[in-house]
């Protein structure tokens, strides 16, 4: 039974209790009235007895000396009391001497003739005695009840009854009101429940609408992204297409041919840089982290930065007191610093001060971080712009002045390197970007000075090229054959494995993303079967490598150029597997 049910039952039984109480009051009132009445009757009997006694005493002589007139006088004195119905005075022989009846009827002649008293009267008698001698009797009948008293009694009863009825009526009314109030409350609770349901429904709808909005914003961003990519690539493709068309012309002078070829190379380089930045933003750039002394890196970059911002912008570099080393991709870090610097330059419209500070800070978790703070004295940005600066292809610069990918790269690089980038800007107050990177543990710096041997000068080796894309595969085969190597091609991981088991190769160059067995899996299997066979992985983008690395294997990024490919293969052949 719940508390609510219990209380309802209590409420239901309350009126019964109150009715019972009212009945009790009524009965109690009647009881008290009866009690009072009997007490009153007793008092009345005593009083009447008193009358009789007084009469008996005062008529003693009259009776004794047979003086009915005197006795009658004494009796008549009581006529003023209208409640006395009868007074009868008898002598010692029982013969009536004097007295009267209220009705005027004659009194009985003797005691024996006296009728018995009825219910409505009180009869008392008193012996008449003088000096111990019995001389007669006085009988006195009186109304049992005063009319006024009777009325009063019935009045009180009626009053009590009315009171009880009033109580019952009041309680009944209250009960009705209570039920009504309960009903109203219940209906209100139901309304509230309905309103709540409606609210929940609306909240769901709102959540759905918000989800739709987010989706549409995502689609918008995606549209912007794809549009930006298409636009930039179309520009580059125009150059490549045009140059290629020109190269196809017969009898083109050698100088022009070289220029067109150079134009194609440049365009392709730009395109590669574009995709690299995109991947950096997507945090899917295959990074090559190394131990970097940030102070040294910034100091080394001074000339580069000065060249980027121009002569009219003063460059201040304030290096902190020995900040810890970080582990990051050197090229990406340099690129991030340059990207920020070039944005600063554009914000300052070619005039102002660019300040680069380094220092050590702590992040929310309490870890030591290196902060690279780059502040300008430019126009600053409003909050809305600040919110969007890391979006790819978002730019405030005019067409052709920027790709809108620079700060995206900064953001992607910082996130992927376990760091963060913070913006602090307001219109007219300049902008400060703070790049934070986690401190690296103690480790010997890698000697980056060693130069790989020239692959071009290698003796001819047998190379297994694994590539599912026909064009890329053919291109790689052409390149490597041109360098004088023996090239065998496989279109899948499975085919490559079969070939590697059947014949002996010096090195394997494998694409990473392929249907069926991928490059990483192939490398793994080969490492077990032929531990001495080096495997170089080539990828344009690989989620797997971006996530968990290449397992120590050499990775070459697409699009790769002849020199890079040659270098990477030479290094792989040299390093012991």
């Amino acid at each position, binding site marked *: 039974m719940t508390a609510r049910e219990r209380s309802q039952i209590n409420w239901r039984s309350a009126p019964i209790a109150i009715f019972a109480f009212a009945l009790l009051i009524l009965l109690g009132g009647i009881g008290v009235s009866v009690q009072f009445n009997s007490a009153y009757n007793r008092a009345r009997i005593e009083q009447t007895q008193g009358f009789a006694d007084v009469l008996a005493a005062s008529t003693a002589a009259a009776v004794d000396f047979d*003086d009915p007139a005197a006795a009658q*006088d004494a009796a008549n004195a009581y006529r003023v009391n209208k409640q006395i119905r009868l007074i009868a005075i008898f002598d010692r022989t029982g013969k009536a001497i004097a007295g009267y009846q209220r009705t005027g009827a004659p009194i009985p002649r003797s005691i024996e003739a006296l009728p018995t008293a009825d219910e409505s009267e009180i009869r008392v008698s008193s012996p008449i005695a003088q000096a111990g001698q019995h001389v007669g009797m006085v009988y006195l009948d009186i109304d049992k009840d005063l009319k006024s008293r009777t009325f009063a009694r019935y009045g009180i009863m009626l009053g009590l009854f009315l009171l009880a009825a009033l109580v019952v009526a009041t309680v009944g009314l209250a009960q009705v009101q209570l039920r009504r109030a309960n009903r109203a409350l219940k209906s209100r609770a139901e309304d509230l429940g309905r309103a709540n349901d409606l609210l929940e429904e609306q909240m769901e709808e709102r959540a759905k609408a918000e989800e739709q909005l987010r989706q549409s914003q995502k689609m918008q961003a995606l549209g912007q992204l794809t549009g930006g990519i298409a636009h930039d690539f179309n520009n580059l493709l125009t150059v490549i297409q045009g140059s290629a068309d020109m190269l196809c012309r017969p009898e083109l002078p050698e100088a022009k041919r070289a220029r067109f070829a150079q134009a194609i190379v440049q365009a392709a380089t730009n395109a590669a840089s574009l995709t690299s930045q995109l991947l950096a933003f997507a945090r899917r750039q295959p990074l090559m982290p190394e131990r970097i002394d940030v102070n040294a890196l910034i100091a080394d970059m001074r000339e580069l930065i000065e060249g980027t911002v121009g002569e009219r912008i003063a460059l201040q570099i304030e290096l902190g007191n020995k900040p810890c080393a970080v582990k990051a991709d050197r090229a990406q870090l340099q690129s991030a610093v340059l990207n920020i610097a070039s944005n600063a330059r554009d914000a300052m419209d070619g005039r102002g001060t660019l300040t680069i500070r380094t220092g050590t800070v702590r992040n929310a978790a309490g870890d030591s971080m290196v902060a690279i703070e780059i502040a300008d004295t430019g126009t600053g940005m409003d909050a809305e712009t600040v919110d969007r600066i890391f979006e790819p292809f978002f730019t405030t610069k005019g067409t052709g002045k920027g790709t809108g990918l620079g700060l995206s790269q900064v953001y992607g690089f910082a996130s992927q390197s376990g760091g963060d980038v913070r913006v602090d800007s307001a219109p007219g107050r300049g902008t400060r970007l703070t790049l934070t990177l986690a401190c690296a543990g103690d480790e010997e710096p890698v000697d980056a000075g060693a130069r790989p041997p020239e692959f071009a000068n290698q003796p001819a080796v047998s190379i297994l090229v694994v590539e599912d894309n026909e064009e890329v595969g053919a291109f790689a085969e052409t390149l490597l054959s041109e360098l004088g190597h023996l090239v065998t091609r496989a279109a899948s991981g499975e085919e490559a494995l079969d070939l590697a088991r059947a014949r002996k190769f010096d090195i394997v160059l494998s694409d990473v993303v392929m249907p069926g067995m991928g490059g990483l899996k192939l490398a793994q299997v080969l490492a077990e079967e032929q531990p001495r066979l080096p495997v170089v992985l080539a990828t344009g983008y690989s989620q797997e490598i971006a996530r968990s690395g290449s397992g120590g294997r050499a990775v070459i990024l697409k699009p790769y150029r002849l020199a890079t490919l040659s270098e990477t293969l030479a290094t792989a052949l040299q390093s012991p597997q």
Partner: protein
Amino acid sequence: MAAMRALALALRAGAAALAMVAIAASAAEPTDISVKAAFLPRFARYVTWPASALPKAGGPYQLCVIGSDPFGSLLDQTAASQTVDGRKILVRRLNSASGAEECQIAFVANNRLGELNGMDGKPVLTVTDGPAGSPRGIIHFAIVGGRVRFFIDQASAQQRRLGISSRLLALALGVRR
């Protein structure tokens, strides 16, 4: 008070008139003598005597008849039927007032009314029944309307240190104060 008394007298006169009719109607009613004989012992209950004049402890009240006795055995009968505070009443008959000192009540017969003088000042309730103009005792019978009534000489009673109940006084035809 006077008005009350006048009213009472008027009523009594009326009652007396009725009584006369009643007597005329029934000849077999008790005679005056018998009524007087019935009254005599009863007076004792309405009178108080000084302690010296009361009967000896436990002794009876003495009702004396001085002179010729008009009641005869009637008085003995009525006296025997009455008590005063539990005491009996003894009837004595005397020739003269001598020896009447021990009587509480003395009926002085008409032939001995002269004896009354000798009893002056003595605590004895004297009762007389003489004709008009004759000497009277403290209580004097009279016949009014055919009924035996009496006068009371309260002054004389007080002189003799006798207390007479107001109830008895109320029945008297007249009270001399």
